[in-house]
Every structure is written in structure tokens, then in C-alpha cells.
């Protein structure tokens, strides 16, 4: 790397420090509402904790990881120093200040509205302004990724953009557009009320804007993981990437289809017509295409590794895979969790099946499995992979890393499977406590205890992760040059369509306008749906 070492480290440390705090809160939540603990004396403490946990895990952690990885990739993949280092630091400081501001509002109990905001509940303006600062910081990153790619193109006219950078910039554009929904919600609808200029707010419209962000944000979280699948995994396990083109196809499909589907979060909402609900459901099916393609490509790439190591027969290659290699273990765990989580996602998407699990504990199980499981386990691997580059440390202890990954995988499964189960029974989300003495709930009590145990394993895993990173001996040896996966068949000329974004970004914007334009426009002109704001945090 050239100049971005400290910058990337700063992003990762801030991300993982927030992650450590938030995961402890998550486990605390599971513990206090399980039968192991008496009811909290103050239920608001529970919701306060949920707000912090969600805000850090959904906004701060993935944004910082994507930013840090993006800066690293633009040096490692483009092989040129990061342009705009000062701006990048400015973005980092904005994220830091925003995080601290939101944290202060949440910690003081003036923002217990959860990370999903839910107007007409209105929290302290500092909470929203803090989140806006985090997002604005990340917009600087988006601009820098674009600028760095452009500079590289100028130096390498007509060359194929390295796949890692191609995915990275796709993720940046995806984020730029998806964050617009929540940005409008906060800046136009919520902040005027939080600052006292208005008494009313359209709760239905706010939910529509939020859904624009809330589903596609998942694909923003996912981008670093998919970049790791395509460009790190095959190399790390001694295989070849089956197809470079498929990687590009997957990234551009995410750009097109991740946005105009968010209304599937609103299947049970009364402010959206059935027609748009169906269109969004059908397009949600389309967004599983890039994931299904990725599953094929990565499994095939892993198979290549197995065969290169002497594996024979239909399944013999599985045995010869380098299972002692943490990356191998991580990608296997990630795929198992992606499989379960994805299957659950298909159920949520099918709008009739959704009725029986909508907004129950099932949903919590689903997104923890996908995000906390499949995605975050690859964040760990990204950090482990980059650490020698960033700190010039000695090789990380593989054994401890394997223990950490096992704990994360088992912990996440133990945490989320009971949630799926009780969700089907109808257990609601986000309750500070349940009366397990009631006959209707008694049978569910054990599941919460099991989840609390799973959560404890996750906390231990997170601590091991931080220990491995912190204990790495800095400057022990100079890092080897960083490499990315090689394709099984050398990448020749990439079709211009898959070497740029113009068409895909246009499709992304056009489809968003088609799928969101009418619902937003018509709710925005409805005057009578502006309802009184309910300020939170009055004592």
C-alpha cells in the first residue's frame, strides 16, 4: 500500500470498536429478556439498547468497513496511491463526529426510537444529525472511489478494471443512491419536526422513504463480502476464480435490482397499493439472481481448488480442500448461513407467506443470519487478510482465528434458529420482556434462553477477533505484495458494458423512479395524512 495505511486502520478500528460495544448490548438484550433474568425495572433501557445496537451495527460498522476496504482496494487493486487523502480523512472525521453525536443522544435516553426511526415518534435532533453526518462522510468516500477509478482509467485507457475495484465502485454507487431515501426522510420529513419547526409528519410517507434505503442497504453491507468471495477466497485457498465475467454481472445486477424492491418491507402496510406490492415482490425475486450466480461461481472456484489439490470424483474434491485455512472455513460457514438466511428471505419475499411471519421474531432471525452471519464473518476475513498490509504484522495465529470463526458460526446459528421458530409461532419483536408464566408464552421461554447462549458465544468470538487484531505484532515483517484471485481462464478484453456503470446506474435510477415514483408522489400530495408528532424522551 502507498498512503492509505493509517486511514484504513482508523476506519477499521472505529468500526470494530463500535461493533464490540454493540455486540455486548445485543447479548445483554437477549439475556435480560430471557427467563435467566428478572424483568428490567425500566423497559426503556431495553429499547435504548436496541437503538444503539441497531444504529451501530446497521450504519456505523458496515459503512466504515466498506469505506476502509474501498480505500485499501483502490490502492491495492489499482496499484496507485489514493487520490484525495485529505478528503478521505475529512470523511472519517465526519463519521466519527456523527457517531459520537448520535451515541450521546442515544445514551442519554433521548433517542429510543430504534435505528428504523419510526416517525411520528420523534427523538432528539442530535440523533438524526449524527446519522446524517455519518452518511455525508460516506458520500465523500463514494466521490473518492469514483475519482480514483477515473484517474486509473486515464492512465490505463481501455484496460479491464480489476474485479475488486469494479465491485467496490459498484457498491459505492449503490450506496450513494440508496442512502438518498433515508436522507430525504431525515432532512425533509423528520428534522423540521425534531427541531421544532413543525408539529406534524406523514408517517406513511416516511416509511416509504425508509424502505427505499432499508432494503438496498443490505446489498451495500453485502458488497465487501462479495468482493471477498470473488477476489480473495479463490486465491487464499489456492484455487482459481471460475469466471471473472460472472463477478461483474453479479455486481451490476445488484446495482439494478437492489433498490426498487424495498416495498417488500411494507407488504402489511396500508399506505401502499397491492399493485406496487406485487411489482416489488417480483423484483425482489430478481435480486436473488446475482446471489444464485455467485453461489455457483464461488462453489465452482472452490471446486477448482479441491481438484488442484488432487480431489477426484463428484464429491472427492470436498475432502481435499484446505479446511485448516481460515478462509476456507469462513466461506463455508458464510455459505451455510447465506443458504438458510436466503431461504428465509424467499419466504419473506413471497407476499402471501410473509403474512404469517411479518414483523415477528422470524425477521430478526432472518437478517441476523444474513448480515451478522454470512456478511460479517467475511468482514472478519477481510480484516485478517488486510492486517499484514496495514500493520506489517507477523502471520496471524491460524488456530485462534479458526476458533473465532467456529464460535461465530455456531453462535449465530444457535442465536437465530430459535428466533425463526418462535417467529412462526407469532412472537413479536422488540419487547423488553415477556411474561413466560403465561400459558400462551410458556412454551417459548426455552428458546430465548438458547438464543442468549448463542449470543454469549458471539460475544466471545468478537472478543477473540479483537484480540487477534490487537495482539498482532506491528512491524514484525514487511508485507508480501497483496494479490487478488486469478481467473481460471485469463481475463482478456472485458466488454465495455461490464467495464463501466453508465447503463446500470441509469437502469437503477430509472427503475427506482418507476417503482417508487408514484407511491411517493401521491403520498406527498396527500395533506390529511400528516399526523401529530409524538416526541420521545420526555420524562
Amino acid at each position, binding site marked *: 500500500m502507498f498512503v492509505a495505511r493509517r486511514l484504513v486502520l482508523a476506519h477499521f478500528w472505529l468500526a470494530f470498536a463500535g461493533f464490540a460495544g454493540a455486540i455486548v448490548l445485543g447479548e445483554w438484550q437477549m439475556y435480560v429478556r430471557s427467563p435467566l433474568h428478572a424483568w428490567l425495572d425500566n423497559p426503556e433501557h431495553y429499547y435504548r439498547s436496541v437503538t444503539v445496537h441497531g444504529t451501530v451495527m446497521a450504519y456505523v460498522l458496515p459503512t466504515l468497513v466498506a469505506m476502509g476496504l474501498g480505500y485499501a482496494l483502490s490502492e491495492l487493486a489499482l496499484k496507485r496511491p489514493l487520490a484525495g487523502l485529505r478528503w478521505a480523512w475529512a470523511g472519517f472525521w465526519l463519521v466519527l463526529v456523527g457517531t459520537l453525536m448520535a451515541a450521546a443522544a442515544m445514551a442519554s435516553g433521548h433517542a429510543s426510537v430504534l435505528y428504523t426511526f419510526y416517525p411520528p415518534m420523534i427523538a432528539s435532533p442530535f440523533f438524526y444529525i449524527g446519522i446524517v453526518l455519518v452518511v455525508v462522510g460516506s458520500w465523500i468516500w463514494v466521490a473518492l472511489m469514483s475519482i480514483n477509478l477515473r484517474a486509473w482509467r486515464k492512465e490505463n485507457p481501455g484496460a479491464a478494471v480489476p474485479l475488486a475495484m469494479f465491485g467496490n465502485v459498484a457498491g459505492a454507487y449503490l450506496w450513494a443512491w440508496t442512502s438518498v431515501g433515508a436522507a430525504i426522510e431525515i432532512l425533509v420529513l423528520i428534522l423540521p419536526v425534531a427541531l421544532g419547526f413543525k408539529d406534524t409528519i406523514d408517517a406513511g410517507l416516511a416509511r416509504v422513504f425508509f424502505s427505499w434505503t432499508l432494503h438496498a442497504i443490505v446489498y451495500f453491507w453485502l458488497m465487501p463480502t462479495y468482493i471477498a468471495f470473488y477476489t480473495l477466497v479463490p486465491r487464499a485457498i489456492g484455487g482459481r476464480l471460475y469466471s471473472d465475467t460472472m463477478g461483474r454481472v453479479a455486481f451490476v445486477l445488484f446495482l439494478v435490482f437492489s433498490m426498487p424492491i424495498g416495498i417488500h418491507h411494507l407488504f402489511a402496510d396500508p399506505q401502499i397499493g397491492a399493485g406496487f406490492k*406485487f411489482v416489488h415482490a417480483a423484483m425482489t425475486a430478481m435480486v436473488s439472481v446475482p446471489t444464485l450466480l455467485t453461489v455457483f461461481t464461488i462453489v465452482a472456484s472452490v471446486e477448482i481448488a479441491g481438484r488442484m489439490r488432487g480431489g477426484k470424483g463428484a464429491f472427492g474434491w470436498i475432502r481435499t480442500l484446505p479446511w485448516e485455512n481460515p478462509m476456507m472455513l469462513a466461506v463455508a460457514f458464510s455459505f451455510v448461513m447465506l443458504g438458510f438466511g436466503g431461504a428465509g428471505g424467499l419466504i419473506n419475499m413471497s407476499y402471501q407467506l410473509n403474512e404469517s411471519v411479518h414483523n415477528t421474531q422470524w425477521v430478526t432471525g432472518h437478517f441476523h443470519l444474513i448480515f451478522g452471519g454470512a456478511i460479517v464473518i467475511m468482514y472478519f476475513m477481510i480484516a485478517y487478510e488486510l492486517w499484514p498490509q496495514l500493520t506489517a504484522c507477523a502471520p496471524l495465529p491460524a488456530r485462534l482465528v479458526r476458533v473465532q470463526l467456529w464460535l461465530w458460526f455456531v453462535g449465530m446459528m444457535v442465536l437465530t434458529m430459535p428466533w425463526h421458530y418462535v417467529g412462526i409461532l407469532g412472537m413479536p419483536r422488540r419487547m*423488553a420482556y415477556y411474561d413466560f408464566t403465561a400459558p400462551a408464552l410458556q412454551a417459548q421461554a426455552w428458546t430465548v434462553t438458547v438464543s442468549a447462549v448463542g449470543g454469549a458465544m458471539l460475544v466471545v468470538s468478537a472478543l477473540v477477533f479483537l484480540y487477534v487484531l490487537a495482539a498482532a505484532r506491528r512491524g514484525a515483517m514487511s508485507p508480501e505484495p497483496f494479490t487478488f484471485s486469478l481467473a481460471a481462464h485469463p481475463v482478456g478484453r472485458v466488454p465495455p458494458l461490464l467495464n463501466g456503470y453508465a447503463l446500470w446506474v441509469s437502469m437503477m435510477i430509472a427503475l427506482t423512479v418507476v417503482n417508487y415514483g408514484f407511491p411517493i408522489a401521491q403520498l406527498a400530495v396527500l395533506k390529511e395524512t400528516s399526523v401529530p408528532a409524538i416526541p420521545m424522551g420526555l420524562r
Partner: protein
Amino acid sequence: MSAEAVAIAAERRWSWAVAVVIAVLVAMMVFTGLHWASMPPSRVETIDPRTLHISGEFAEGNLGTTLSPQGKVVVRLIAQQYSFEPQCLLVPAGVPVTFRATSTDVIHGFVVFGTNANTMLIPGYVATFTTTFPVVGEHMMPCHEYCGTGHEGMWARVQVVSADEFRTRAGNGSRVSCVRR
């Protein structure tokens, strides 16, 4: 055939498999939508949450279950911090029941345990959906959306009685509930 051509052919086959999977999933949604009449709650209807209690469909006297002379069963209810009104809903078994509900303050929602009755309640909008409760029994009906610091206390109940018993209790056109008064 070169190795690369083999690889591309395998990829193509998989892409077709993916297309089929997606097509089947969407076809299932369309099929159930057409033949089982199962659609998400979808009517858009607005209402002013400030004056719900003074007059109109969601004034207190209109809440509860009614049986129209044509045999249509309608449950009207509101959600507020931190209870549903009525707190206990009385419905017949085996008959389509139409719910009409809204919120007087923040976003709420409810799910009836062990059934598909599940909706969000957004202030300013009326949620309408129709469902059938197959068997007689009692279900819990919690609020399933965070609605403030008393959310954990927002539990209602649904009592499903036989269609005959329901007709006896609601036959005279009055509104009924299972709240003990």
C-alpha cells in the same frame, strides 16, 4: 471443446436453472394471488387520527365486531399507546372476517398467534384485510411494532367462537367484543 467453452456452458446451464427457480417462485405468488384470493392488505384509505374518537367509523361506539344482515363479519378496532380497543376481539370460526383498523398516535401493528392475521397500523391510514379463523379457541394478539416504552405491555386477545354462538351474540346487529365490562 476447449476448457473455457466447457466452463461457459456449465455457467449457462446454471443461469437457466436460476431463471427457472425465479420463474417458479413468482408463478407461485401469482397462482396463490389468483386462486386462493390471498392478497396483502392493500386498500389505501386515509383518515385523520386526531378526531377518530369524536365521530365516524372509529368512534368508541363503533368498535368491536358486527354481523351485517347480509352475513358479513367486520371487526373494527384502533391501536393506541398502549392498548387495542377493544382489548378482546370476538370472531366466528370458519367465516371470512374483515378487519378494519387504524392507529390514533404512533405506528403499531398486530399479529394473531397461530394465524395469518397480521397487519401494520399507520396513523393517518385505515388498514383493511380479510381472513378466516379455522378453529374455535383463544389467541394472543400482541402489538408487533415498537410503539414506545410501554410496547411490551400491549397484548390483546382474540376469542374465536363457533359461527352459531357468534350469530346468537351478534345477531341483533349490535357490536360485540369479549371485553369483560
